[in-house]
């Protein structure tokens, strides 16, 4: 199986941000995303959600550059104000062209 190395960025955030984040990552070149709902706890206690503690978890496989741009935007626009964490790791995919 021929695989290509890409980056997976995972963003966990307050649910109010869900739509904006999916738009943002697509603007930076991501070709797709997957979102699951859950709950969490971190440094910011209170979320503006009906159900306290709820969180969305957004995953996106993209190029290293796209992930760096996404991280940059997160750091600038969201980290100061919102409950958001993100992490990046290398992954192997088949059909690497799908994600560019």
């Amino acid at each position, binding site marked *: 199986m021929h695989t290509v190395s890409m980056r997976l960025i995972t963003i966990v955030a307050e649910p109010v941000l869900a739509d*904006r984040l999916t738009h943002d990552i697509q603007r930076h070149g991501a070709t797709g995303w997957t979102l699951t709902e859950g709950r969490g706890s971190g440094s910011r206690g209170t979320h*503006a*959600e*009906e*159900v306290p503690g709820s969180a969305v978890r957004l995953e996106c496989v993209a190029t290293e550059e796209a992930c760096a741009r996404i991280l940059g935007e997160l750091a600038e*626009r969201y980290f100061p*104000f*919102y409950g958001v964490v993100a992490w990046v790791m290398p992954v192997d995919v088949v059909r690497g062209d799908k994600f560019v």
Partner: protein
Amino acid sequence: MNEILRTNLLSPIVLSFALGLVARVIRSEFSLPKDVYAGLSIFLLWSIGLQGGAELRHASLAAVALPAAATLVLACATPVIVYLTLRRIGRFGTADSAGIAAHYGSVSAVTFIAATAFVKSMGAEAEGYMPTLLTLLESPGIHIALAIGVVNSARGSGRPLRETLHEVLTARTMVLLVGGLLVGYLMGDANWRVVEPFFSTKGAVFRGLLCIFMLEMGLLAGERIGDLRKVGPFLIGFGIAMPTVLGVLGVWLGTLAGLSVGGATVLGAMAASASYIAAPPAVRVTLPDANPTYYLTLALAITFPFNVLVGIALYYRVALALAA
């Protein structure tokens, strides 16, 4: 007043709320599943809308016009009053003041229902078209408060205000209230009679589901109780005094506009109530600097219980006095 309070405190709505509060205080893990909670709030809003529409057919435009005007006056006055009080007296920042103003500018549908049920149980049923007024009061206050906040705030969220206003206008609450009003109005009496036992806000289904919803409201309020320390004595006092002022203002305007004692009480409760469904996400994305602990604790853990436990009975007393 004692008898009035007693009637209110022993209503199923208040008792269920209290039970939820206690359950959280004794650290029970109980809570409504997320989708059940969302489903219930959809049912409640949709029922209010439909019934409002069905009743509107029986109201003359003339009868509705004045109360509607009074409601719009409240929609504009409330956020401004709240904003100025917080800025001038409370010395809060722009974002926090505007954020809290958006919550009081809108309305809590559950408080509305609790008030409607209460006046009915006191034998002073409100006008049938009250849900129309609820719908009118739902969104303008949020728009005004957010506009104040954005205009006066140096550091915005980098997001066009227009987008948030669109979101508020097309939010779940608006679709269900405005849409329900239209559908209830258009479907006509014969069709309404078929579904009335299910949707009527006076019926067993609505009242029963409301109890279950109030359980969760109690849990949610209980969850915020620990935050009372964080908001400080000024805001705690504010969360009781401000609804009292707004409630009396609402009752007075309602009486002026010709509403019955029950109707004026309900309008007062609407004015006094703070939204915790529509306002929080709108404020969160538009005024990210505003501290959610402030507005959520105020709306859910202070003003909501205050209104449901004591406020409504108080506004009713005021309405009685003004009518006399």
